[in-house]
């Protein structure tokens, strides 16, 4: 089986327009959460959002201007990761280079746009001569879930497998895991993996609001509204953006000699087969144990874990129990944090973003904190790196958890690369 190396990382998210500024914001505990824009707040006055630090369209060539926002985020993150990996032209082994994308709600912006256009024409007397059913001809290819994978594959001339995973909050963690397996088992030699999400639309926020899982605004400071593992938690905040990784086999990298950022250690995935939205210790433990086993690591060899940590009561308490079950006596020496307090929940992009932040934590020795954790929930009794980043840590391996609605669990493990 092939060793799989990570040679490029890219980010555009609420914390920043690239990986370095995003990681710096995470370390500084700079929250990007705030009230929703006026058009959404007029109907949902308490809804909070974590919008991307920049409009992706502003960073792209004009030819990408009509694409769905999630595809635009994917292009920006992929560009940083591919540049990072030194891949700027179509690779000579293009048929062995794949594209893997995780997205929760493909085409959210495009779909919302169609309905907005339809109803505004329908109800506007000055537009009565227009048929509201006439839509942009590229609406379908823009909203299809695999729009980002298709666009990235065309942009870089990548001719290997291109697959899109939609597994709610675990989408891009599974995309990373499956790309890892494809290279590990020799189906591909390289892949760019992207998690992307852009659903801060009126329609999707109304739907999320109805589920009663969204954070209530902190009266003193809305930026502090998402408080994972805290007694005063009230739920999560939707974010948007993308993160990307370039992975390649050690044999491919040996020829190209790129800077290696990490080695993929292991991947685990499982399904609870229990409840649509409630988490399960059994399923989470299974995912984490598979990842450790594949990496041939014992729990005490992992020093940092980026938790799923959504700041819902059930989620935080169950994940704490799962981590304790897997890590046993070494759980108290494990640093765990949820960066969602700062960048919000990026759903399909969350797994990739949090894995990228974990790898950057490993390489820098600086661990991003769990922000706003002033009143810890006694049932959540791990070392959550509260409030402030921790620097000068020696980290050999990191884990990142993503647990999805629908009962899908994914754990990713990366370790330092020893040439």
């Amino acid at each position, binding site marked *: 089986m092939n060793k799989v190396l990570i040679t490029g990382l890219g980010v555009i998210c609420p914390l920043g327009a690239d990986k370095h500024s995003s990681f710096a914001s995470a370390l500084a505990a700079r929250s990007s959460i705030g009230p929703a824009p006026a058009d959404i707040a007029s109907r949902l006055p308490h809804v909070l959002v974590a919008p991307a630090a920049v409009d992706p369209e502003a960073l792209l060539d004009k030819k990408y201007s009509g694409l769905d926002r999630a595809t635009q985020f994917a292009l920006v993150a992929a560009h940083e990761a591919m540049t990072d990996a030194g891949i700027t032209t179509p690779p000579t082994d293009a048929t062995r280079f794949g594209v893997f994308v995780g997205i929760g709600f493909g085409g959210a912006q495009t779909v919302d746009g169609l309905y907005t256009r339809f109803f505004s024409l329908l109800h506007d007397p000055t537009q009565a*001569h227009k*048929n509201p059913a*006439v839509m*942009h*001809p*590229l609406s379908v*290819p823009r909203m299809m879930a695999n729009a980002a994978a298709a666009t990235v594959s065309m942009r870089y001339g990548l001719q290997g497998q291109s697959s899109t995973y939609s597994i709610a909050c675990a989408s891009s963690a599974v995309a990373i895991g499956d790309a890892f397996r494809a290279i590990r088992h020799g189906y591909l030699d390289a892949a760019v993996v992207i998690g992307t999400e852009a659903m801060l639309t009126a329609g999707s926020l109304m739907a999320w609001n109805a589920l009663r899982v969204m954070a209530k605004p902190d009266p003193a400071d809305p930026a502090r509204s998402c408080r994972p593992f805290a007694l005063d938690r009230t739920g999560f905040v939707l974010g948007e953006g993308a993160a990307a990784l370039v992975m390649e086999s050690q044999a491919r990298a040996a020829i190209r000699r790129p800077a290696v950022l990490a080695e993929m250690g292991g991947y685990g995935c499982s399904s609870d087969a229990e409840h649509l939205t409630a988490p399960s210790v059994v399923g989470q433990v299974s995912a984490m144990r598979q990842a450790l086993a594949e990496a041939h690591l014992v729990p005490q060899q992992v020093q940092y874990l980026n938790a799923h940590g959504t700041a819902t009561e059930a989620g935080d308490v169950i994940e704490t129990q799962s981590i304790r079950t897997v890590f046993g006596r070494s759980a108290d020496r494990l640093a765990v944090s949820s960066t969602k307090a700062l960048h919000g929940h990026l759903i399909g992009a969350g797994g990739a973003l949090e894995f990228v932040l974990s790898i950057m934590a490993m390489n820098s020795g600086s661990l991003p904190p769990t922000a706003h954790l002033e009143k810890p929930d006694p049932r959540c009794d791990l070392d959550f790196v509260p409030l402030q980043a921790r620097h000068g840590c020696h980290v050999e391996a990191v884990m990142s958890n993503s647990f999805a609605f629908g009962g899908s669990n994914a754990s990713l493990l990366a370790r330092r690369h020893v040439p």
Partner: protein
Amino acid sequence: MLEGLIKNYLISNAGVDPAKFDNPELQVSDLELDSLGLIEMLFEVEDQFGFQIVEPMRYLTLSFEEMVADIEAAVRDHDAGQSPTHDATKAND
């Protein structure tokens, strides 16, 4: 004028060389649009006038002038005999 609207779109969005329009014999096929490019171009008109143009692929074998005339006729039909009065300067509004 519809012709202005379509030309503006082709030059600024589809990357068509403006010099091509100096040729009175210009064929739609000379614009080098693929099937998606063609329907995207027609949407500029459809969006403005609020109806869908039928059988768009037939334009691929017409001259540019014939296509514009045909679209103008379709707009007239849709607007019950009114000539299109679109102001090309507002094409990108």
